[in-house]
């Protein structure tokens, strides 16, 4: 039992006063001292260690060890050395102490007395809140998702002329500019690039495996066929690993040149095959046609990076 404020304090040989305060250790949250006011409320406050409390028989009194004589040897409380618990932030202090002289009561309003089914009102409040929220979920989702799924653009773009390609089995970059129309924005011109290789029959075989490559739109209708024996092969400029832009480079290990992505160091040969690095699939072959004058046209196809199969995004 904890000592209570106002309780009478007794020694073996008589009453010494009453408890006016308790002192709490801020770390252990235990009462460390009781403060006993001598006499009938006008005397000095003496600070008595909790160890000197022999017994707390009930809420009205506590019994101290020793005699009246010994009680007078306890130090007088130095009030300046303490603050009240209202002036400090000590977690869980109130939970641990029960020293209030009594409960403080306020009357509850008459209308609140005997109200039945409080939980019904609580549940109804939640239910109405939910009814306000639910019809908003779908419109908000649709609002946010508006631009997320677009039909594929299968139009052809001119990217350059193959006459600039002199050597076989070497990557040549073709830069092109295309219009890009997004939502309310005026059409913007964005720069992109693709890589074209003039392939020897071995490389053609490595890319196409002797079969024509067919391209479909999102409805599954055939859009274009790359012939298996077409000498020029175009690769999307987007690295199939994580979407960076790769380059044609000659390195110490590959003096003839390879496609190298500077991001995560994926390396591909002229047939787009992964030679080294983390890429999960070969370079993406683009739908491409070359006319008699050597003009190259492509469909600007992009696939999702980082997966084994080709999942078309654009």
């Amino acid at each position, binding site marked *: 039992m904890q000592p209570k404020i106002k309780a009478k304090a007794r020694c073996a040989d008589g009453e010494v006063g009453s408890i006016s305060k308790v002192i709490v250790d*801020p770390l252990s949250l235990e009462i460390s001292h009781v403060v006993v006011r001598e006499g009938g409320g006008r005397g000095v406050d003496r600070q008595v260690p909790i160890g000197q409390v022999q017994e707390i028989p009930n809420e009205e009194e506590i019994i101290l060890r020793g005699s009246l004589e010994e009680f007078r040897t306890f130090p007088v409380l130095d009030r300046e050395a303490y603050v009240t618990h209202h002036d400090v932030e*000590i977690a869980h202090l109130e939970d641990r102490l029960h020293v209030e002289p009594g409960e403080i009561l306020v009357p509850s309003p008459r209308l609140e007395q005997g109200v039945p089914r409080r939980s019904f009102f609580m549940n109804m409040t939640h239910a109405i809140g939910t009814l306000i929220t639910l019809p908003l979920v779908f419109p908000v989702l649709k609002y946010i998702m508006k631009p*997320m799924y677009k039909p594929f653009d299968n139009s052809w773009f001119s990217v350059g002329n193959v006459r600039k390609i002199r050597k076989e089995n070497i990557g040549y970059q073709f830069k092109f500019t295309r219009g890009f129309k*997004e939502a309310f924005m005026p059409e913007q011109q964005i720069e992109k690039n693709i890589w074209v290789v003039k392939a020897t029959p071995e490389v053609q075989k490595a890319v196409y495996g002797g079969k024509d490559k067919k391209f479909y739109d999102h409805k599954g209708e055939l859009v274009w066929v790359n012939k298996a024996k077409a000498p020029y092969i175009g690769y999307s400029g987007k690295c199939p690993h994580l979407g*960076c832009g790769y380059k044609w480079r000659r390195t110490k290990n590959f003096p003839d040149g390879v496609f190298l992505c500077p991001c*995560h160091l994926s390396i591909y040969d002229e047939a787009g095959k992964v030679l080294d690095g*983390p890429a999960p699939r070969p370079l993406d072959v683009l739908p491409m046609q070359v006319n008699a004058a050597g003009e190259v046209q492509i469909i600007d196809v*992009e696939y999702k990076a980082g997966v084994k199969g080709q999942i078309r995004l654009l």
Partner: protein
Amino acid sequence: MNGNPTNVFEKVVDFVDERVGLKTIQAKMLNEPVPGGSRWAYAFGSCLLFIFIMQVVTGILLMFYYVPSTDHAYASTQYIIHEVDYGWFLLSYHFWGSSAMVVMVFAHMSQVFLWGAYKKPRELIWLVGLALFGLVMAFGFTGYLLPWDQRAYWATVVGVEIMDKTPVVGDFLSRFLKGGPTPGQMTLSRFFVIHVMILPAALMGLAGLHLFLFRKAGPAGPFRGTPEQIKAKTDYFFPRQVWKDIVAMATVFLIICTLTFIEPVTLLEEATPDPGDYHPEPEWYFLFLFQMLRLKIFAGEFGQFLGAVAIPGAFLGFLAALPFLDRSPERNIFKRPIALIGWIAIMAVILIFTVSAILNREFLD
């Protein structure tokens, strides 16, 4: 109210105090016992708050000129840097402030981990702290796109491709962030609103909760010493800890200013899907992850999922579960060998991968 107010100022203070209870609030804020006394090691949290407030101030100022559209973002950022008085300073401060934030989050988490302060009864503070860590990373990622230069564009391209690898929700998440199949105006709009509205609101709420829970549980104090020794050194938050905090904040401020002067932000070319000669690279605090993804063991579709999503996700999951797995009340780091070795190992891995990413730059040039 104490005594009779003598001048107008005291009268005003008393008037407000009577209605608000300012003096009690102030007393509650400042008079919190710090078990074992104030320490420099406890300053990290306060520094984070300071850095965040400065990010809010500089961020709001940047929005006076910045326009979040693909045809104006780059030009308006260049205008801030080159034309607006002190624009270069505010923008560079905001840039270096974000790096400082990441460093400080690291220091703060390490301190809490090494001190064993995540243990019972402080599990929820740790969990909310982890969520805050996620928000700081999200701030870095979304803010990076806003200048709309090549660096910004490619970091976003790769970052979103990585998120795309999340199971089930990945495709939706990456389309949601991009606002379409490829990055463009919708991406910029979305990153902008996330960066300047959603994340700050979330961070303020969670940081408030973090502080509330911290005050509720009380500071953990040092991990060694008898209760008597700890009690003998205990003092209040004010003045000694507040003093250490403000000195630490001033130091952080000076460091950020110094970096701002030495290395002010310059932009690369305007963003476009053709990288040209630019070698895409994320901000330095993501470099270790970037370098990890170059490893052969993270090759292929599954390897990539492992390196980009599964391992970082599992690590964060492990951190979240930590206070529930590690139930031993022992807080002394020198008596928790697994924790100490684990921390050193993770720091070493991050350091090694960051350094090797930097060394790799020369190989590419």
